[in-house]
């Protein structure tokens, strides 16, 4: 049986699944239920200064649905906790006392001045909480007041606030990053410079979920108007994975602990984030869609997969994918693939043909000898994978590496690795082939 325990910044947790700072962690009642269900930790919903903020009294969530109303993303315009600071602090202290084996981290957001941070940090420390997370991510409402993503979009502010927090508290400090920025490496570097112990990402993506075509207003609509919200859920996961990878392989931040967030719905999603180097993951939308019980699937799925693969601990596979994320220029141009269609599996829907014909390379037939049949024309196939992506049958179309000779280019395929850096078409080509920088190695978890 795999060991799922984690020690993220020295904060022990029975498993890597934490609930992200969000509505599910706003109250003792919810957190109590989460821990009963098996969640390893929580990041308590963001605390601010008194008097507490108020929320809109109309709808605060919007949704993006897939088939059968499967929720692909949520969009929210909820603010930080709208309960009194004392109430939250009391409950945090009680929960931590009642659940000593679970992680309780407190999310914070106060104005960008030293005094309010110093004040609230002291209060949090008294609760016995395990750490703090600085909310530099929320892209709606609070950002209009100079907090949330308004801070996260200015690396200098991140560094400054992180430094105050490290100065005024002995608790581990996690900086939660906003994805609403052009290059995620800059805020991550700033967090590190400021002395933060870790980053967590991503917070929500600024979004308008839909426009109501009867009222001509964004949804959810409040008295005829709507404002952008923060989008989360499965639809944002690929963006989150990329941002995590960017930080994991950036020379300036390599080795910095990362708490992965963004659309994690199943054990597999969590495993992918951990494979990129995350020390744990945080979940919100999956719980807000199905309830806290989803963690049971995450725990059993991850554990069974680790058993199957022979990974005893989380650290055994953590970061294994990070060295394989590289720059385009280092991809092997001598790796030549052709699509292969398994005729026994083909159900003849013809989608591979029509997308290739209309939008790509005219490399798949629709008729062979007068009969409906879809075959790859190697002379035209560039190996792009579009047919694989649109085929409704799993493993019906696969990409096969070929060697020796490419019938499309009518040229031999070199056996050795070759990339763009020395390619003759590259105006900046170097005489000698450039290789990707040595993959970075993550420090041991014990360190």
């Amino acid at each position, binding site marked *: 049986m795999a060991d799922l325990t984690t020690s993220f910044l020295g904060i022990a947790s029975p498993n890597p699944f934490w609930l992200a700072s969000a509505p599910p962690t706003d109250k003792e009642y919810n957190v109590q239920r989460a821990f009963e269900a098996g969640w390893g930790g929580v990041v308590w919903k963001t605390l601010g200064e008194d008097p507490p903020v108020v929320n809109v009294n109309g709808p605060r969530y919007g949704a993006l649905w897939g*088939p*059968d*109303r499967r929720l692909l993303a949520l969009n929210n315009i909820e603010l930080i906790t709208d309960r009194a600071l004392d109430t939250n602090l009391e409950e945090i202290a009680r929960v931590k006392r009642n659940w000593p084996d679970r992680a309780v981290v407190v999310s914070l957001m106060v104005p960008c001045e030293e005094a309010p941070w110093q004040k609230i940090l002291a209060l949090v420390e008294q609760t016995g909480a395990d750490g703090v997370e600085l909310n530099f991510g929320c892209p709606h409402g609070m950002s209009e007041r100079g907090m949330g993503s308004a801070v996260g979009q200015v690396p200098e502010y991140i560094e400054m606030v992180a430094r105050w927090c490290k100065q005024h508290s002995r608790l581990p400090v996690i900086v939660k990053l906003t994805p609403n920025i052009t290059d995620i490496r800059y805020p991550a570097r700033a967090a590190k410079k400021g002395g933060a112990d870790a980053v967590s990402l991503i917070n929500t993506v600024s979004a308008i979920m839909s426009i109501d075509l009867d009222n001509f207003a964004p949804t959810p609509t409040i008295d005829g108007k709507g404002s952008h919200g923060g989008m989360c859920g499965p639809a944002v996961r690929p963006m989150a994975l990329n941002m995590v990878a960017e930080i994991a392989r950036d020379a300036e931040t390599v080795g910095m602990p990362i708490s992965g967030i963004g659309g994690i719905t199943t054990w597999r999603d969590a495993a992918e984030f951990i494979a990129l180097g995350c020390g744990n993951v945080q979940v919100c939308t999956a719980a807000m869609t199905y309830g806290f019980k989803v963690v049971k699937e995450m725990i059993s799925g991850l554990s069974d997969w680790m058993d199957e693969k022979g990974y005893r601990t989380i650290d055994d596979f953590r970061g294994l994918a990070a060295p394989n994320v590289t720059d385009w220029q280092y991809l092997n141009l001598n790796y030549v693939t052709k699509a292969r269609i398994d005729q026994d599996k083909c*159900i*003849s*829907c*013809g*989608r591979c*043909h*029509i997308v290739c014909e209309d939008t790509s390379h005219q490399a798949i037939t*629709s008729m062979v000898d007068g009969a*409906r049949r879809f075959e790859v024309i190697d002379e035209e196939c560039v190996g792009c994978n579009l047919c694989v992506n649109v085929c*409704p*049958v799993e493993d019906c179309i696969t990409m096969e590496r070929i060697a020796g000779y490419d019938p499309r280019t009518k040229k031999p395929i070199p056996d050795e690795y070759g990339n763009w850096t020395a390619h003759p078409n590259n105006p900046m080509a170097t005489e000698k082939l450039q290789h990707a920088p040595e993959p970075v190695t993550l420090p041991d978890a014990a360190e």
Partner: protein
Amino acid sequence: MSDPLPRRPDIRAGRLPAEELATGFADLHPALERHEALVEADRCYFCYDAPCMNACPTAIDIPLFIREIQAGNPIGAAKTILSQNILGGMCARVCPTETLCEEVCVREVAEGKPVQIGMLQRHATDTLMATGEHPFKRAAATGRRIAVVGAGPAGLSAAHRLAMLGHDVTIYDAREKPGGLNEYGIAAYKATEDFAQKEVAFLLKIGGITFETGKALGQGIHLADLRRDFDAVFLGLGLAGVNALGADGEASSGSHDAVAWIADLRQTADLSGLPVGRRVVVIGGGMTAIDAAVQAKALGAEEVTIAYRRGREAMNASPYEQEVAATRGVHLRFHLQPKRIHAEDGHVAAIELERTMIENGKLVLTGETVTIEADQVFKAIGQTFLPHGTEAEGEGIALERGRIRVDAARRTSLEGVWAGGDCIAEGEDLTVVAVEDGKVAAMDIHAALTAADRVAAE
């Protein structure tokens, strides 16, 4: 305890309580709810050169209409359907989709579970019809007049297309109501709530179509007159004759023609007043046999048997139709050919059948007989084209295999006369095929008249 009285045929009405009767005649496939339709529509792969579309006799762009449903535009979906098949609503209910579009659906091939194309088509057309709007507009009047004989699917389809193209159409039909087999032939549980009439009313909203009842070729109208008085004539005559059983005792009371019985049933407002035998035997292997048997059962017949002279695989009724009959308690028996009807006091008491076998591909009798007691026997062994209306005119319209011969454009051997539906030699006897015939003929009539106009103008 013995019965002292002579055996009486047990044929009576009101065998079932009202609720049970209503259940038996309720919609075979209740309509999809909006959400169900969205989920089902999402199963469609939007195939390239879609097999379903190629399998549809009216070539409805099925992937497109399903995508329109999926994108929340069922009205647009209905227009896509109706532009190819103006009786798309009825076809959605009665088409043997399991042998047409759904049979070749790639998801049928892949997983034995095709996209429910028929149900989606019904969802779209029902949604449009519920608005009360007619989606098509007539072209400018051409001043041309066309006679359509027969208000069944072929005639209605031809009339609608011709009217849409700007021509004035008069439809003649022998019966009181338009619709043909949609009104008088289809099983009641496939077209509930007077759908056939609603659909005709919807279709007539195009305008330019007049309907004259009580008239058939040789009865109030004559082909020669129509050819003289109209610019073109379309014949959608259907099949007026029924095959004879060729068994002794066929004339006994209690022996019925299934087609006529179904027509009566369809026109019976209160089915609790329609008598049915306690034991019913239906002879035949097609859809009519299934429809008669299932409806006899639904009326409360206790034992209903379909006897077919060949094996199950040779039945014209699809495996799906057979399953419908079987699950509703109809007993299907094979390799039994009627020999004689035993009558008592002139009334059916039993039917004697002889076992058959296939030898070298031929049906042969074995001499062994089986007798099934029955209060009623229905024969559903095929219908025939009765050409009397046409030959009475002395015109000699050319026939082929006993039906009207037409070319690809549905032109008959007579100048200015087109034909379609079951009365022509080509094509399966299906509503959807008849609709296509009417549409093709209408387009050709239009082309012919337009060409004539052009010649006249030059």
